[in-house]
């Protein structure tokens, strides 16, 4: 069995554009913002990049189809560039491509960049897309909050928790992320919100209220990856390395076969188990110092805590309310504000998560810095609970 890519790939430079309603800049400008920061961070010239993966998920109109918008914006030197799209897991998918290229020995230095320019659609939320002409004949077009909201009722039915208690735990998830977003200079939303306001917000998709939902943003994030050896040549004595990247895609089992109860995201569980094995993590509750997860909706973050094995079954609401995942908790979650407050430019989100962990591992997270940061996990989720792409990455230092 293949041994995975643990410590075969180092991240030597990362950049992240300020997320938000970037009326003044297009997709090209967002990519330039992230890329120039990453080049500076890596201390390399653009010409050293031998291959690139660009992630863009949703809106061809505002970024452009194919991989070409990236090499045009960044004037990459005619290297192979591949566009990847895996819904909201696109950012991690781009990193996976670049990391595998380095790990395979095909290239020495590769770029992963994710970008999304969503605020030109004229409304909040994601644009509608076809599900394919056959599926369009039967499959409902639900909104993203509509798909994830269904976790809540199924969770109540599975665990017998009181719906009001669940709602309060969900509100705490958002409350915590707003607290963290205040300390995140590049975040889309940097305002603290009190619990009463969260609990009293209008419904978007029952039982999710406005503050249970992340918005969508403009943004870009990127990583330059190479071998640990080259990283050291670049002056990174103890580089941040990728301990694991695992991605699991649904095959229809959840939404077509009568076994899953709707209260979890099975692909997250599979991806986490594989990532822990690849990284050699045996006790994630003890070994992970911080996590950045796909909190597209508060209920999603809540069930992720169980899916990642960090809370016992049915205990996530209590753990959340006890503050386990708060900034000063045992396993802080969304130190940068997460999708909820840092923002969610879909194709960039997975790389934004890695950006926060990368900075935390190097003690560069400013006011958000976690005292101990040896292992960090990112969890990037595309699709819906019943038809998903889940990606889990684990980062650490090589030594």
């Amino acid at each position, binding site marked *: 069995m293949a041994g995975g890519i643990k410590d075969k790939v180092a991240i030597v430079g990362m950049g992240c554009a300020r997320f938000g309603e970037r009326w003044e800049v297009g997709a090209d400008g967002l990519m330039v913002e992230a890329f120039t920061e990453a080049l500076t961070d890596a201390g390399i010239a653009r010409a050293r990049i031998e291959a690139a993966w660009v992630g863009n998920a949703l809106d061809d109109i505002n970024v452009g189809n194919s991989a070409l918008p990236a090499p045009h914006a960044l004037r990459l030197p005619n290297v192979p560039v591949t566009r990847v799209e895996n819904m909201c897991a696109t950012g991690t998918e781009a990193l996976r491509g670049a990391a595998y290229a380095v790990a395979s020995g095909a290239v020495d230095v590769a770029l992963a960049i994710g970008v999304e320019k969503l605020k030109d*659609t*004229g*409304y909040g*939320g994601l644009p*509608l897309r*076809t599900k394919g*002409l*056959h599926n*369009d*004949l*039967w*499959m*409902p*077009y*639900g*909104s993203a*909050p*509509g*798909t994830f*909201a*269904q*976790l*809540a*009722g*199924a969770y*109540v*039915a599975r665990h017998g928790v009181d719906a009001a208690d669940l709602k309060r735990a969900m509100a705490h998830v958002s409350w915590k992320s707003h607290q963290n977003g205040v300390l995140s200079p590049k975040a889309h939303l940097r305002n603290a919100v009190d619990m009463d306001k969260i609990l009293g917000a209008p*419904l*978007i*998709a*029952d039982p*999710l209220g406005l503050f249970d939902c992340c918005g969508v943003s403009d943004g870009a994030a990127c990583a330059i990856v190479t071998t640990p050896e080259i990283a050291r040549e670049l002056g990174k004595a103890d580089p941040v390395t990728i301990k694991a990247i695992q991605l699991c895609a649904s*095959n*229809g*089992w959840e*939404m*077509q*076969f*009568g076994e899953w*109860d*709707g209260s979890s995201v099975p692909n997250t569980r599979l991806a986490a188990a594989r990532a822990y094995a690849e990284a050699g993590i045996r006790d994630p509750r003890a070994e992970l110092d911080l996590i950045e997860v796909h909190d597209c909706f508060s209920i999603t973050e809540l069930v992720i805590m169980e899916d990642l094995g960090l809370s016992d079954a049915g205990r996530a609401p209590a753990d959340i309310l006890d503050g386990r995942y708060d900034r000063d908790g045992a396993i802080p979650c969304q130190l940068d504000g997460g999708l909820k407050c840092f923002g969610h430019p879909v194709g960039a989100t997975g790389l934004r998560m890695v950006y926060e962990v990368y900075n935390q591992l190097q003690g560069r997270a400013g006011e958000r810095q976690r005292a101990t940061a040896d292992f960090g996990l990112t969890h990037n989720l595309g699709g819906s*609970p*019943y038809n998903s792409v889940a990606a889990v990455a684990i980062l650490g230092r090589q030594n």
Partner: protein
Amino acid sequence: MGGYVPLLRADRKALARELSWSGLGMPRAGYRAVAGWDEDPVTMAVEAGRGLIASAPAALRFASTSAYFTDRLQAGIVLDALALPRSVRTADCANSRRAATGALLDALLAGAAEVVVAAEQRSTQAGSAAHLAYGDGAAAVRTGDAGGARLAGHASLSHDLVDRYASRGHPAPYAYEERFVRDVAVPQVMVPAVREACAAAGIAPDRIAHVAAAEPVGGCWKAVAGKLRIAAPNHCDRVAELAGDLGAAHPLYGLGLALDVAAVGEFVLLLGFGNGADALVFEKLGEVAGAAAMARELGGGVALASPTRFLSLVGALDLDWGMRAEFEQKAQATVLERVGREMIGFLGGRDSTGNVQFPKSAFPVNPALGAPEVLEDVRLAELEARVLSITADRLNFTPDPPFDFGLVQFDNGARVLMEMTDRPAAGFAVGDRVRMRLRVKSLNPRLGFRTWFWKAAPLDRPRLGDA
């Protein structure tokens, strides 16, 4: 027989009160059945006819004056939705309020097992009497050589009396003066047709015990009954009171109510009116399957409280739904040809272990199976299921919010992500039992096209008038 009336019923009195400032005259009693945004003559015809296909009929006739397509056979769409064999003969009958009575008479005279479905969702203009008098609904009849009633006599009469009309140039009805219509229709059309039908049946008109007579304007049947000394109740009045004038489906629905309450041996008159008349006299021989359910269907529903929601549903109020509504769903004929019949027929597939899935696939979804299989057809449309997960989505555009959808679990193993319809007052919840109803899946107003699929609905409807 079978009948269908939409869940929503507009309270005429409340709506007339809203328009009282205008001084316009309109009916004030009873309810007007209002098709949901996802209902149309095809969906209502399927609801009315779905109970009549225990065996495939020789022919399926679809009658309507409000069919959506003008060059596409509606009966063929209904046939696929009912998963009937393609060898069943199909025909659309249109352009007259007596399209259904004519189709029924032809079916009876053909002597074969046929199904006649009539459904209407007619355009009306706000302010007109028809706006509140018309209703949406459907009725269906199965004919054959055995049943609870026999055709004893009939007569038809053509007379191009323009009591009202609708046209491509004027889709809403244009109605002429009521006294003129009554004065011509009663003596020149209705009375002769009924008299001749009774004569053909070998009975005097006063032997008629129950009536299902569609009138061009109010008071016509009363005048006919007086002239012919028929004391029987006109059951179409009840349909008009609780649902409205159902157009081509109106006399068939009244026939169902009449045959339900008639005693064995009694004679029932069916009278269709529209540029002439069809009069059919039936003798009740026994129980008419489905007739009792039509009475229950008529009495089940929910009062539609919002006048603006009513106006929006009937197309009289064009709301700006914002940018989110700016999308186009284009269905391709090639895809419809490949899988359309399985989709609208709600045909899943059973694998070699017995598990059912929808849609079918070469590799079964069952993880126990590792190789491609040919799955056996299983129709899910007539099965109950339960809600596994659900939300009321208030972000997603729908013409009648919220957009309820979730995973629906069938007992045979099939699990389908479905839209919900006929939302109950308390909404849907995990564990709810649901039944399947054919509804409009996508609308493409720019290209004048639409598709249909099945949606999950509550098993039962509240009684009209219940809180």
